[in-house]
């Protein structure tokens, strides 16, 4: 890879040890993908995770004097004040989150603690070269906004925020953004939940860039968010196209760059039913709690729940995870009061895969998101997956059919 004088100086330590370390990692990534050069970025999003490896890496960079040139937005850990007030976290776990907070603050990140920056806080323009990690974010910025990001890891995105550059390869080039798998959707796609299930069909769809046809004319931001999130739970996808909808796929020909697809996959209602059977606990049981907001719920989704449960009492705990500004809007608009009165909580700045949920270990939850069900398995928390309506009813009655 050929570096500019400035990039070489970064690598050689003239901008400090921390920047040199970040640049060294990026050069190694670039070389593994045969990149020829580094190009500047204008935005970044780091999938902070508040896990040991995340803290280890952030503190290592901070101690070495690194500072972000491009202040990145960050993913949630858990909301310290919320969980401390409820005495739901051990001192050890609270200390971990505090250290993570301090490390990212020190590095100069925007402490947004939200995994859907592409909907409100960090929205790129068409063609913008950026470094976005977070599995629901990368496909959204590439596919829906037409910005250009590789499928960055949390670490590589943080390195990019520090140096202000990314190696040029993959989805930064026109020719690598063409679809290669035709996915004809014959299933009924009515609600955002259906897109959760469609996204979980990564094994059937296969490796590459899927081009979807047969989807409705209008597709909500929640549906698009869910599709990307689950494609990256069931596989590894940097982008997708929806013919006649996403900006780089005005026609099927444009989506494939005039070339024939390598594969053709047809998705029916049966596929959605089969995948649900595979990933969800069986129904006809009592549940202990409901959890929503993986990825973070929008204000509209919060409103939907508030309207459904207004004036009723929940039999089971309900946790709705959002960004802090959706929470603020929910407070302002009265949704927070409605949900609190029913016995549920809007939780800001928090991810389902965090130690603050230790009281749910061994319990059975219900959620509409396969991603929410997937990662906490390691914490001994398991889920029934159903559409949002069924989940809300289950929280009201305590059982799911």
């Amino acid at each position, binding site marked *: 890879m050929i570096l500019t004088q400035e990039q070489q100086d970064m690598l050689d330590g003239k901008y400090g040890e921390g920047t040199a370390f970040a640049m060294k*990692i990026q050069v*190694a*990534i670039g*070389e*593994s*993908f045969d990149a020829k050069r580094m190009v500047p970025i204008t935005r970044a999003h780091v*999938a*902070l*995770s508040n*896990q*040991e*490896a*995340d803290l*280890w*890496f952030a503190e290592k960079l901070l101690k070495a004097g690194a500072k972000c040139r491009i202040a990145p937005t960050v*993913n949630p850990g858990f909301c310290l004040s919320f969980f401390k007030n409820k005495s739901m976290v051990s001192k050890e776990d609270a200390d971990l989150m505090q250290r993570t907070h301090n490390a990212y603050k020190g590095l100069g990140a925007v402490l947004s603690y939200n995994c859907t920056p592409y909907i409100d806080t960090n929205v790129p323009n068409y063609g913008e070269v950026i470094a976005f*990690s*977070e*599995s629901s974010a*990368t496909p959204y910025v590439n596919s829906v906004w037409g910005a250009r990001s*590789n*499928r*960055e*890891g*949390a*670490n*590589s*995105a943080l*390195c990019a925020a520090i140096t202000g550059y990314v190696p040029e390869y*993959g989805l930064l080039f026109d020719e690598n953004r063409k679809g290669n798998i035709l996915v004809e959707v014959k299933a009924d796609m009515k609600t955002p939940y259906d897109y959760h299930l469609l996204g979980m069909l*990564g*094994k059937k769809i296969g*490796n590459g860039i899927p081009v979807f046809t047969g989807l409705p004319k209008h597709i909500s931001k929640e549906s698009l968010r869910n599709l990307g999130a689950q494609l*990256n*739970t*069931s*596989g*590894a996808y*940097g982008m997708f196209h929806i013919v006649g909808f996403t900006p780089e796929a005005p026609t099927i020909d444009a989506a494939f760059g005039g070339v024939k697809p390598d594969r053709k996959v047809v998705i029916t209602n049966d596929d959605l039913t089969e995948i649900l059977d*595979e990933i969800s606990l069986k129904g006809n049981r009592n549940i202990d709690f409901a959890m929503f907001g993986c990825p973070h719920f929008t204000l509209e989704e919060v409103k939907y729940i508030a309207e459904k449960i207004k004036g009723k009492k929940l039999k089971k705990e309900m946790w709705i995870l959002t960004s802090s500004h959706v929470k603020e809007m929910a407070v302002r608009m009265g949704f927070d009061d409605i949900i609190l009165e029913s016995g549920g909580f809007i939780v800001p700045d928090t991810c389902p*895969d965090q130690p603050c949920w230790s009281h749910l270990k061994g319990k059975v939850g219900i959620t509409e998101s396969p*991603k929410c069900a997937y*990662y906490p*398995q*390691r914490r001994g928390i398991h889920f029934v997956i159903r559409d949002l309506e069924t989940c809300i009813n289950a929280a009201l009655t305590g059982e799911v059919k």
Partner: protein
Amino acid sequence: MDKKKFSCHKISEGVAEAEAIISKDDIMFYLIEPETGKIIEPAHDIEGKSMAKKTLIFPSGKGSSVVQADGLYQLNQRGNAPKAMIIQYPETVLVSSAIIMEIPMVDKVDPEFYEVVKDGDLVRVDADNGIVEILN
């Protein structure tokens, strides 16, 4: 028996030698038990088997952009990370995790390798010189 050497392309530097374990499915290191290196993901091709201290041969990574690094970190802390990794479809999350955790990783191995390699073979990965070798 003849030693078999195959060319490959370096992703993460280093040299390592270990017993092979082959997965047909993509791997997400977070659903691997750090204490044993066993895959705990339901319905995975190598569910229940351990990849600790082995040469792990698999198509690609999958899963969210943080859990690969954390999964590998947790395995590494307990000495149960794979010794080396051979993949077919590099993706940035997996590649950056391997580089940061300093685990040798290669791709673009001569297709013939995949015809002959089996579970349990002793496989040496020399990422620096671009060579994969079956030693048994």
